[in-house]
């Protein structure tokens, strides 16, 4: 059996399979993309929903699309941690001594994360519908929302990969990433309408890459403008790749 796929794709696929085997062997590593988003959804809907909109169902419709964005941004944190641990254990020394592209181990690990992001989407949409969430647009827009979410997750996680290459311990990866992810996801229209925010915070929200993503997903799931925020989101995604893929690769090459 010979494949004609270019070597980077072939090697990345083999390494993605490795990551998937590891994930299957440690299902508890999926908590952050299964149980955790559900807990957040329950917490915010029942604890704050009444206070924020006066009606839990209205708030759930507003919250769930945003929850999707937040969970995806958080879902990438584990990737940097795992890669950091792999390097510490010396597994990557083996990969470096093989005639494969330097990028393959990182690309492979990122590709395997698709499973985790898909899990976030499926779990949130299923559990949300049990709680009463309804897609108000249609099947295809909903599929598009899931595809965009996963795509964004694949771009955003390169920040985590880069941090994973830069810091010394996998615990530090989590620390650094949460410093970034928490302001990005809370300083956004995920939980509240942003017109109540003070001016300086509104300024932050307007340049936050999570903002157009939340608006796009919201538009795709419960209706509203899509084209504008989608364009901005795609530009942010491209920007994340252009900046953080080279940074991550360079940091990986330098790490002896």
């Amino acid at each position, binding site marked *: *059996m*010979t494949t004609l796929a270019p*070597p980077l794709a*072939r*090697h990345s696929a*083999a*390494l993605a*399979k*490795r990551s998937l*085997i*590891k994930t299957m*062997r*440690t299902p508890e590593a999926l908590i952050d993309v299964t149980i955790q988003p559900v807990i957040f959804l329950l917490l915010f809907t029942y604890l704050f929903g009444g206070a924020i909109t006066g009606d839990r169902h209205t708030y759930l419709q507003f919250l769930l699309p945003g929850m999707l964005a937040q969970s995806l941004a958080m879902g990438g944190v584990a990737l940097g941690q795992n890669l950091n641990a792999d390097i510490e*254990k*010396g*597994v*990557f*020394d*083996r*990969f*470096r*001594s*093989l*005639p*494969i592209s330097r990028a*393959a181990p990182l690309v492979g690990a990122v590709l395997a994360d698709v499973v985790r992001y898909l899990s976030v989407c499926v779990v949130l949409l299923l559990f949300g519908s049990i709680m009463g969430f309804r897609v108000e647009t249609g099947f295809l827009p909903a599929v598009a929302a899931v595809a965009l979410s996963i795509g964004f997750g694949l771009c955003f996680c390169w920040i985590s990969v880069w941090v994973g290459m830069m810091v010394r311990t996998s615990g530090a990866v989590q620390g650094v990433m949460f410093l970034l992810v928490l302001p990005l996801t809370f300083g956004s229209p995920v939980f509240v309408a942003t017109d109540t925010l003070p001016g300086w915070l509104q300024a932050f929200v307007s340049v936050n890459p999570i903002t157009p993503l939340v608006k796009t997903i919201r538009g795709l799931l419960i209706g509203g403008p899509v084209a504008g925020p989608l364009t901005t989101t795609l530009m942010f995604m491209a920007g994340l790749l252009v900046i953080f893929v080279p940074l991550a690769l360079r940091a990986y090459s330098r790490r*002896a």
Partner: protein
Amino acid sequence: MCGPCQAGVRAVPGTAVSLDGMGTEDLVVRAEGLRKRFGSTQALDGVDLRMRRGTVLGVLGPNGAGKTTAVRVLATLLRPDEGSAFVAGVDVLKNPQEVRRKVGLTGQYASVDEDLTGVQNLVLIGRLLDLSGRDARRRADELLAWFDLTEAAQRPAKTYSGGMRRRLDLAASLVGRPEVIFLDEPTTGLDPAKREDMWGVVRTQVASGASVLLTTQYLEEADALADEIVVVDHGRVIAHDTPDGLKRKVGGQTLRVRPADPGRLPDVLRLLDLLAAPGTSASLDESAGSRPGAVSAPVTSDESLDKLIPALRGERIEVTELALHLPSLDEVFHALTGRTKAEELV
């Protein structure tokens, strides 16, 4: 007993080597002037290495001597600050991917993936070396059988013992049938029986045509395996020779004679005294551990033996033991580095 141990064949007996007259086409590793600095530590301070095809080169030195750094440079994991290196005829700095096709590396710490099973670990390496799925699987099964890991093949590597991990790690470096194998302290931390198994593996690889560069802190290991030994200390090569050549270079050979008739001991003592190195004299073996009834004398050259035999015959002295002992590598190491023993520096 595992496969490799039974197949232990001593390859390429230590023929006399002339390092200067060595043609470069025979050299499978050729490094010149390697320097590498980490912060304030000069890990490599101008290292030259030469390894002939089909031989075992032992790189011997205490912890921190620069052995691992040198291996990482040769295996393309690390770029030197200065110097050049060719492995299997390929420039390590200019064409690292080509070098990676030809070498296998087993590091100091087993770099197997603990969450993957033995077979998954090896199949992954095979796939990354562009074997088809079926060929990767076949090669994995072959290596697992050879390293006595077939029964453990379906278990995650985290359940393996230290020795099993080492074997799996070594198997992983052999998946691509490399021309040159780098082993960085392959037996550190293994018990003596496991160490001998590993030696068997090395010998079999060499017998099947590979060249092996191994680093070790164990003088005994270098003596047992290596055709040539490089002694490294403080990032520099301080000696390169065959094990016997090294011992000879440092001197300290001992001539020992045991007469069949203990009554002739005084005569033997007198004869050996004449041959003893300047400033030394022959003595009766009385030290603990040696059987009494023999005479020893430090000598400077092999010729002493040639002179002794006619002398013994002339005096009609029959002997039951007549031997020229080279110093142990421990003594050699001490003489070269001024330190007692490599392991004691840990």
